[in-house]
């Protein structure tokens, strides 16, 4: 299983918990699997097959835009963070 850390606005899909466990071989699969259990999750994050403008996704602390985006492969025990892009500065 993979740990998925969620930004506060997404915690309505996790009963308020800051992180959940999920399965999948890529970031996209993980998001789709969470969406099956909690419908509406995917559309908050993905639009036209891409990560939405104001969201950043990190795989083991690395921005997935420096990797393969939603197709970034994920291994057992990895950590995904889904965070707001407008932060800091």
């Amino acid at each position: 299983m993979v740990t998925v850390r969620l930004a506060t606005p997404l915690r309505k899909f996790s009963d308020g918990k800051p992180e959940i466990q999920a399965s999948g071989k890529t970031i996209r699969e993980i998001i789709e699997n969470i969406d099956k259990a909690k419908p509406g999750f995917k559309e908050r994050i993905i639009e036209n097959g891409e990560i939405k403008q104001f969201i950043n996704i990190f795989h083991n602390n690395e921005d997935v835009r420096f990797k393969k985006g939603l197709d970034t492969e994920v291994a057992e025990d990895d950590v995904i963070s889904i965070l707001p892009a407008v932060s800091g500065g």
Partner: protein
Amino acid sequence: MTVISLKCRNCGKRYPVEAISICEECFGPLEVEYDYEAIKEKLSKEKIEKRAPTLWRYRELLPVESDSSIVDLQAGFTPLHRADNLAEALGLKELYIKNDSVNPTFSFKDRVVSVAVSKAIEFGFDTVGCASTGNLANSVAAHAAKAKLNCYIFIPANLNLGKIIQTLAYDPNLISVEGNYDDVNRLCTEIAGYYNWGFVNINLRPFYSEGSKTLGYEVAEQLGWRAPERAIIPVASGSLLTKIYKGLKEFETLGLIDSADTRITAAQSEGCSPVTTAFRTGEPIKPVKPNTIEKSLAIGNPADGYYAVKVIKESGGTAGAASDPEIIEGIKLLAKTEGIFTETAGGVVIATLKKLVEAGEIDRDESVVAYITGNGLKTQDVLANYLTKPPVIKPDLDAFRELVEKKLEKEVVAW
């Protein structure tokens, strides 16, 4: 009470005034919404001019409700210099330097932090924090000390020594993180989701960023209640640039200036220029891994990059970038022509201005305001290797005469 609500800049959804920064629907940034009609009735040029010379002279346009919450180190109302020597060196008709390096902690960050920490007190937080490239660390630590708040500050491990030492003097909890600013910021965004703290540039960001508007107001007031023709602004997250523009537009809305038609121009380093690149290519912002001596602007994934590009385009401005050697030359040029010693971010502004004038992108007849946002004493480590080491002589008149007659030989030596 001049604040109405928080409003999503992307989708327009409104929220009550709370310590939140992101729209629940679209993750867009929340912005403070004001009742401009009410402000118009309360505020006039005469009223502002009679007030103390700090950023709080624009009180009605800042999102803090109670005077007793205000944490004020007397930041703001910094000098606007007419810079004729530098103008001549650059071939410009009229140039002003907004010298914001003389704030209480020696950067413009005192403006945003004074607002954010005041708001943190209003919200009842006992702990404040930030992710910082250095200047913000200095300012948050200072304001937290004054307000007797707990303070957690996170910085990239490779920060300039001067900024680390200054921060430590205020005695916060300073945490140095292995990684660049974007790593630090990501970590703090996660921490802010776990601890109920007031992170000035995360959950307090809508209030924090409003402080930067005062750099627009002040320049307009100091120019005799008019907007500059062009402003050149250093860009890291892009927040400062968008808020200077917002400030000028607000003054126009309130009738305090006739029009806010300033061409907003961005300055970045070549080693970290996602906003300039997006403006020039027309592509969306692409995050980069910074590689530059300029650390205070080294945000590879700029939070307000999208909006910064939009403002530059809307205002008819442009964007440029300077290389590391050009940044050093920019620092030296400002110091030797105007007597103002700036940090690397100021070097970026002067060097980029020079390049844009030479390229004909800024007209030589324009009246330009260059924003210098940080003090040179903070980044001496960067400059040390590029300056002439002073000659050493015996305390003897003949020794000096011999030296002068030989003419001071200038040679750059590593210190």
